[in-house]
């Protein structure tokens, strides 16, 4: 029952911020709230799992124990960033209210034991994020926000339609239609009919839209580019994982009966996403867009891993967790770089390591992790997915994957590394960077290394438990 603190604390804080003239202290409220929910999530991860409660709508199983700490710790890191920049860009009461609403809705979706409740949580994060993307002084951010909302509404509409088809399938086979996760496996035990196949296909397509997968990915580069850096990190590292958990829940229930459909659809959209993002990575000169395309690329890798199931499942989880920290580090660093130089053009930026030493180091190390270098968790995760591709005989996908990843690897390195080395092209005055202001990114980096070098036994048990639910028959 105490899991509900993850929703209750941000809701109370949001109301407090809305009703009191918090002013400059609003960002402190954000930081304190995010720290509290992080502590609650980490403590609960160490406790035994809880059966469904609150009428069966909420539960704290291994998946929640694995993802809640990640999401809340990353959100706390984002709150540190917002607090650290308060002197330069004071966070408005509106921003903090929406960010806290976003956090509460994310946690609600994560805790859901009912697919419709998870859907409602995800929709609520979308509505909050749409407003957060808008920057008052940048008209194009409004357009990006609109496209984000439009694609999200359509994608989540398809998910809702898919869920309706799934309940219809249960009713057609003589079971009571249910979306409670603990009741669904019994209701879908029979052979897959047309309704179920349609429901699974629509749900995967809709969730693919939220994850930025092809074919409905075009909102992502624009939204990630135009949004303020903390919001981009929220979208890429928090909302992405909430949508992914919903996908994991659907896969857990339906892999047994619709394995071939799921594998075919996820492998296809995964490979297509890697292909379109690779072409865009080669072409772009905008650092935030490059990172956005890399996110699509990574979503493609995750889709392929999920499509394979079996031995790829542990690799996918490792990749997903690493990816969350990588995106948080890189998007927050990109925001700092953009604020410093007033441009996102990679050709106009050089000598970061001299000019902004901490940002330079984080961009460099983050890019190595992004590209899947050892000793980061992304390396091991990608290796396990590749190995599963070979062992499952998907040689065409394996060849395409390797070729495209190599191209994106070279293109990303060619664009990012010249920004880090050499002489600065612009002379800017800026207060000397202090380690305290970058502590959150340092913590993310340490966690990233932990995932690659030594996974603590308790985390390993949790990951194995969640991976087991994804393996399929």
């Amino acid at each position: 029952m105490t899991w509900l603190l993850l929703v209750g604390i941000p809701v109370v804080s949001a109301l407090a911020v809305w009703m009191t003239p918090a002013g400059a202290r609003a960002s402190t409220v954000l930081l304190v709230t995010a720290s509290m929910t992080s502590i609650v999530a980490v403590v609960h991860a160490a406790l035994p799992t809880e059966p469904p409660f609150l009428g069966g709508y909420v539960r704290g199983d291994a998946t929640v124990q694995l993802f809640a700490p990640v999401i809340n710790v990353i959100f706390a890191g984002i709150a540190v960033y917002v607090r650290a920049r308060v002197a330069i860009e004071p966070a408005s009461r509106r921003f903090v209210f929406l960010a806290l609403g976003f956090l509460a809705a994310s946690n609600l979706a994560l805790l859901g034991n009912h697919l419709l409740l998870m859907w409602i949580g995800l929709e609520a994060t979308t509505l909050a994020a749409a407003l957060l993307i808008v920057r008052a002084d940048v008209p194009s951010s409004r357009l990006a926000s609109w496209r984000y909302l439009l694609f999200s509404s359509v994608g989540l509409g398809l998910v809702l339609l898919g869920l309706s088809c799934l309940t219809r399938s249960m009713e057609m086979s003589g079971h009571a239609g249910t979306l409670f996760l603990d009741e669904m496996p019994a209701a879908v035990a029979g052979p897959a009919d047309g309704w179920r196949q349609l429901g699974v296909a629509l749900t995967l397509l809709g969730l693919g839209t939220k994850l930025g997968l092809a074919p409905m990915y075009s909102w992502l580069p624009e939204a990630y580019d135009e949004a303020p850096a903390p919001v981009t990190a929220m979208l890429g590292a928090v909302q992405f994982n909430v949508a992914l958990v919903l996908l994991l829940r659907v896969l857990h229930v339906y892999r047994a009966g619709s394995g071939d459909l799921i594998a075919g659809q996820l492998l296809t959209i995964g490979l297509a996403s890697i292909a379109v993002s690779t072409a865009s990575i080669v072409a772009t000169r905008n650092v935030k867009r490059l990172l956005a395309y890399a996110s699509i690329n990574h979503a493609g890798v995750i889709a392929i891993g999920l499509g394979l199931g079996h031995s790829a499942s542990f690799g996918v989880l490792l990749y997903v967790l690493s990816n969350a920290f990588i995106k948080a580090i890189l998007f927050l660093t990109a925001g700092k770089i953009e604020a410093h130089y007033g441009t996102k053009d990679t050709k106009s930026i050089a000598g970061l390591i001299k000019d902004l030493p901490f940002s330079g180091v984080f961009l460099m190390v983050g890019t190595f992790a992004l590209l899947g270098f050892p000793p980061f968790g992304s390396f091991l995760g990608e290796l396990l997915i590749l190995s599963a591709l070979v062992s499952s005989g998907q040689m065409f996908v394996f060849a395409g994957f390797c070729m495209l990843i190599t191209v994106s690897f070279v293109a990303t390195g060619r664009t990012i590394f010249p920004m880090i080395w050499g002489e600065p092209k612009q002379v800017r005055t800026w207060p000397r960077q202090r380690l305290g202001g970058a502590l959150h990114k340092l913590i993310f980096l340490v966690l990233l290394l932990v995932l690659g070098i030594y996974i603590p036994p308790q985390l390993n048990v949790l990951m194995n438990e969640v991976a087991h639910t994804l393996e399929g028959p």
Partner: protein
Amino acid sequence: MNPILIAFVGVLMLPQFVASWRLTLFSLSLQGLLMAWISYDLHTSLDSVGAWIQMFDLAIVRGLAAPIALYAVLRGQRASARHDVIPPNLMSWTLVLVLVLVAFRFADMLLPAGGPDHSFVAAACAGVLLGVLVLSTQTGPFSQMAGALGIENGIAMFELRGHHDPAMQIAQTLILVATILLFRWYLKTLPRASAVKVSAVEGMHP
């Protein structure tokens, strides 16, 4: 086929053939009201909280609030009367008819035995497909809103025969209300052409 469902499909097709934003909003309003009528036919006694919430969602939110909210903005902007939600050519009009036929064929495939569900599935599918057609051919915010709301209505039609917990229904209705308020805000604040000049560096504005 139920005459109200026939009327619903007709109303869905109306804005595709008559280029007027007023008619588009009128069509959205009628879709909501017709769905409310169908819902009333299904739950005549209105004896459950869920039935009342569904009625509120369909008649008040979809049938009245959403079209009126968007109407007020467009009227305030003195938008010109003509507004195409799909390109006005024979190809598009044929496509509309083909999509409606596809929707019925699709319902045949899913429910080969026919039955009362068949018409619901066909009408819902037509709503979704026509909404997708509008979204895939238009770049203006109002047309895109009309397409998105058309898809939402198609999904609502599909869900008419389903049952959910009243708390879930309330949450879904609140989400819809918030979405409509956001749509209204975007319609007010977005440039009508939605064309933003982009410099040689992708995504960076001059």
